[in-house]
């Protein structure tokens, strides 16, 4: 247990294959409590698959995956893992398009997740306060009653981050949050994530190097399903292997 003690996420020797293709290959990755980590790597490096494993969508063929030092995530499913406190933003923004922005947040708010409380649910003042707060943080106040389908791509990304905040997870997995955003939106998102990271553990997958620099955190570069290089952004981006497989092209 020793090494897992202070970690929020602990992956050791994790492998997973799809039809014989090793998407994750003996991956080890440790995230300390309260840490924010940026993960970079070429397309197909296994970044999204790593998140699938952590959130219970994909079962690893081998290896250990522990949350919060002691919870074996391979023994739980998606809904369990989400309620334990791991929130996820998908690579392709996924919000409930047929609901208003506000309802998207209502359904995400931390609270009981069973049928009858949902049937007889009445919004509390506390919930209203949280929703106002999240709408303010994600700059969606004016969109409150709009259908999520009508949001711009960047706004959907923010709404999904807002939904993560509503869940109030201990660990946030954020997959390519600035894809398709303007420079101004990207800078705004970096600010938002840094703010979130002050009170949460966060893993951010991103290709945008300016954005990663903006975050100013430890960087892990994945390649062919395992860690190629790890350290400060300057250290990683000067690593010849990283330059060869990723940055050089």
């Amino acid at each position: 247990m020793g090494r897992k003690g202070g970690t929020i996420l602990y992956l050791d020797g994790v492998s997973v294959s799809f039809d014989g293709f090793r998407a994750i290959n003996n991956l080890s990755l440790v995230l300390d409590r309260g840490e924010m980590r940026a993960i970079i790597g070429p397309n197909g490096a296994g970044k999204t698959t790593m998140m699938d494993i952590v959130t219970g969508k994909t079962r690893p063929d081998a290896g250990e995956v522990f949350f919060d030092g002691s919870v074996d995530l391979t023994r739980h499913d998606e809904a369990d893992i989400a309620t334990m406190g791991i929130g996820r933003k998908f690579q392709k923004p996924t919000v409930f398009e047929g609901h208003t922005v506000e309802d998207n947040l209502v359904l995400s708010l931390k609270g009981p997740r069973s049928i009858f409380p949902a049937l007889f649910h009445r919004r509390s003042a506390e919930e209203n306060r949280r929703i106002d707060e999240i709408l303010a943080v994600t700059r969606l106040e004016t969109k409150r009653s709009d259908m999520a389908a009508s949001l711009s791509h960047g706004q959907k990304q923010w709404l999904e981050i807002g939904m993560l905040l509503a869940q109030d997870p201990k660990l946030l997995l954020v997959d390519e949050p600035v894809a398709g955003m303007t420079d101004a939106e990207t800078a705004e998102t970096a600010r938002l994530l840094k703010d979130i990271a002050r009170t949460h553990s966060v893993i951010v997958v991103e290709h945008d190097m300016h954005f990663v620099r903006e975050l100013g955190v430890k960087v892990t570069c994945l390649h062919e399903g395992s860690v190629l290089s790890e350290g400060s952004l300057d250290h990683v981006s000067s690593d010849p292997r990283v330059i060869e497989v990723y940055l050089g092209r």
Partner: protein
Amino acid sequence: MITGRFFASGADRRVLATILVLLAAAVLVPVLNLAVPQTSMFHVPTFMVALVGKYLCYAMLALALDLVWGYCGILSLGHGAFFALGGYAMGMYLMRQIGDRGVYGNPILPDFMVFLNWKELPWFWYGFDQFWFAALMVVLVPGALAFAFGWFAFRSRVTGVYLSIITQALTYALLLAFFRNDMGFGGNNGLTDFKDILGFNVQAGSTRSALFAASAVALALAVYVTWRIVGSKFGKLMISVRDAESRTRFLGWRPENIKLFAFTVSAVMAGIAGALFVPQVGIINPGEFDPSNSIEVVVWTAVGGRGTIVGPIIGALLVNTGKSYFTGALPDLWLFALGGLFVCVTLFLPRGVLGLWDQLRERSERRRTEADAPPPGDAPAIVRATPPAQAEPRGLGAATPEPQPAE
């Protein structure tokens, strides 16, 4: 505030109006049938009462399907099975009410059992001489079957076409089973020749009126329950599961439980509809399990407008009226007409008749506001009066229910 919501949205107003119309019909139709003399132009003939009463049961079945299909994305092609099971439970009660008035005069055994040379009543017929027991079974049997079926199907994450196919297989399996004489449900002929219900002659005009009233009230109740479910946080979850199941899962909800609850409630509703149907038509036989029946229910719902509460009711009434006309005038063409209707609705009216109506109204309203050229200060109020989600027709997959007001 519930009263506040009635005025907040057109959809809610429509639901309220439907409930009121149904309750009014429950009172008025029996009066016009029983108390108004036959010579009066306001008299409603008894065959009409029975026919519309039957349609109301179909409407309730369509509403039940809409709860799972329109709101939760589960396209059940076997909802007729729950309807038929509710019908059989009621039929068993009606059989036992016949007592010794059957052809063979056996006080306990229904005629078909005597005919098969059975000596005693099978255990699963016990209790059906009591109305309360039969009523309980009307709810429990479809509910339990839906629960068991949903438990396995939703847990193993069977979705889409595969789920539709197994629901169809379910009703087909029941069709074959109920055809068998040794199952003890009257085989091919089913259950018929009913005499009394709760001591009243099922053929009597007053009983028919009462059954009509019961159907109208039951449908009104079903509309109310559906409306409350759909308007709750749970209802929003159903829509979430329909539109983005895995997103719902990663928020910590269990889509399988959400679907299971909706499916079970829906099956119970369908069972009650079947139970009200049987005394009005006077027979229940395995034909009710026919897969094509369940597919017809899908057509009614699609025609009316799925994902709306009032739509399926309108669809069931419209299509069945058309069917009554067609099977009288051009019996061979009915199936073609039904198939053509479904294709047309799918292609041109993804939100059904109700969606078309909203679209037309919206267009005329827009034209009016343009013609009136309102002073700028008034503009926002007019914009707010037209719900944004109804502005454009959407594809089938994106069909959304009426937008709910913020609570």
